[in-house]
């Protein structure tokens, strides 16, 4: 179990992304970064200044963005694609399937500003289906880091991975949730709090809220385990099985649709290997307009909301 050091300061994980890709590019001249117009919103201005030839901006053209990345990977480059998650996953889904996953191209896609980061901009800009889409594709590694430290390590691991990977890079502010000695590994969950009554499995922006829920539950005498699940594919099945067997009830929570994301992945494992009561928390469908934090509160994706769901599930178990 890792020490939890939830900080009061909130961080934009794009900053960790931006500094990491510069470090990667310094160390390896095969690294190239691709974007579709979004130099500023991907925080790539400094990268462009330092590595002008290795920042390939194809304009507003997601299909070609991913296709060009595949071509570069075929030639031995290590492309990192940075684009708004809602557009790159949906518009270029077939390129991701065929040109990257089927071909096993070593391309890292960084889905920027995912979930409801663009809350006020409405459902066209909400990215709450991206994980479900990508999870359905064979041979795609799907990563949803929770804080700057994990974002940096996830980007590095994705680039090192011998195949395509997707990293969701949060724009919505998150506190640091991992200690300095945390080591991210693809496919490994991280237990952030022990408990025997119920488990909350979370990733991305929901990890800090899950930790808050555990504190609220502790005050009510419910011992809640908190599992951070940054890798949605391949899922850490052992950790899910342990949660089911040792706590008997699982709540999943994610900044994503309730259909087919982390909750879907955990449920597939639970029903087939270790059936226990579950509750999948997330967004129900197309969302109204509103600031990101307002949307999270509106749909109960808060420490309070998670704690209530976990308490109900614990009662049901009893």
């Amino acid at each position: 179990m890792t020490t939890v050091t939830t900080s009061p300061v909130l961080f934009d994980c794009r900053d960790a992304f931006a500094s990491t890709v510069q470090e990667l590019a310094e160390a390896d001249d095969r690294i190239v970064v691709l974007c579709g117009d979004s130099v500023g919103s991907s925080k790539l201005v400094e990268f462009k200044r330092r590595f002008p030839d290795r920042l390939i901006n194809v304009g507003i053209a997601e299909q070609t963005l991913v296709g060009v990345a595949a071509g570069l990977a075929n030639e031995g480059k290590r492309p990192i694609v940075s684009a708004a998650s809602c557009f790159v996953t949906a518009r270029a889904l077939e390129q991701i399937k065929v040109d990257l996953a089927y071909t096993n191209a070593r391309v890292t896609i960084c889905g920027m500003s995912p979930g409801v980061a663009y809350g006020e901009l409405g459902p066209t800009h909400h990215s709450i289906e991206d994980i479900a889409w990508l999870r359905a594709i064979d041979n795609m590694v799907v990563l949803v880091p929770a804080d700057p430290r994990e974002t940096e390590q996830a980007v590095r691991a994705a680039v090192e991975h011998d195949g395509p990977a997707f990293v969701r890079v949060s724009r919505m502010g998150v506190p640091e949730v991992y200690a300095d000695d945390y080591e991210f590994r693809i496919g490994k969950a991280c237990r952030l709090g022990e408990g025997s009554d119920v488990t909350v499995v979370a990733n991305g922006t929901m990890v800090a809220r899950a930790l808050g829920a555990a504190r609220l539950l502790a005050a009510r005498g419910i011992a809640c385990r908190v599992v951070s699940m940054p890798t949605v594919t391949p899922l850490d099945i052992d950790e899910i099985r342990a949660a089911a067997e040792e706590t008997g009830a699982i709540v999943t929570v994610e900044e994503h649709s309730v259909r087919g994301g982390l909750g879907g992945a955990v449920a597939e494992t639970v029903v087939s290997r270790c059936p226990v009561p579950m509750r999948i928390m997330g967004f129900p469908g197309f969302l109204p307009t509103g600031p990101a934090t307002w949307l999270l509160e509106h749909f109960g994706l808060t420490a309070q909301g998670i704690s209530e769901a976990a308490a109900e599930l614990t009662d049901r178990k009893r």
Partner: protein
Amino acid sequence: MTAIAGHALPVGRVDPGLPTEERARLLSQAARAIRRRDLQMVKAAGLGHIGGDFSSADIVAVLLLAVLNIDPSRPKLADRDRFVMSKGHSSGVLYATLAAAGFFSPALLEQYMTPLSPLSGHPDARKVPGVEASTGTLGHGLPIAVGMAIAGDLDRSARRTFCLVGDGELQEGSNWEALMVAAHRGLERLTVIVDRNGLQQGATTEETSRLEPLADRARAFGWAVSEVDGHDYGALLRLFEGLPVVAGRPSFVIAHTHKGYPVSFMLDRVEWHHKIPSAAQVEAALEELS
């Protein structure tokens, strides 16, 4: 597969030192053999796209057997020229030509689309030597080829990238995104060849969603355009050996072709997009190709 007997595929590339006329003669012989072999593959599989195979057969043969700087015995050689077959449904002619070039044994062609075969209905770059990109979904090959050409520039390499697209395929918007990127970056070592047979699955391209004026459109996108008879080996050789069409720009070659060429009962007939010939039609076509 007894029909193969007597129609053996010649294996080997055309000697680049020979005069153009002699190379054209050898390519015409090879392309006839490739078409015969492809016809038998499609008949045996009961699947395939013979019409588009035959319209592109001469272009593919000229590239793989004569123009590309490649060594089939070393398919991953660093500075080889790259060929992306974006119209992946013409896999039959691609496989037969790769075998003729020497990338793998012609015996493998007997496995075309059989269970567990590496030779799927659409080419898989991970399974077939000489296939540079997995294609089949239309509009994917050109963006990949643009990425490959950008990599060549980053590597300061003289290697060239060729991408063969179907004409109907140009209705996919991703191609036009890629055309913009290539022109913007002045990728002069990139050449796109359009197999302009004028037909797509159910009708002509012009009846379906008009492509003309295609040359003007490509020019307007910043490409240097050249038009050629896609069944004239000498003309294809001279054009490819004179690339780029204009220095500093990518080349857009409109190769005028005929679906089903040169089989009389297939020629320019839309139903031969993916019709499977009867035994009698196979015999008749083989006779015409002998």
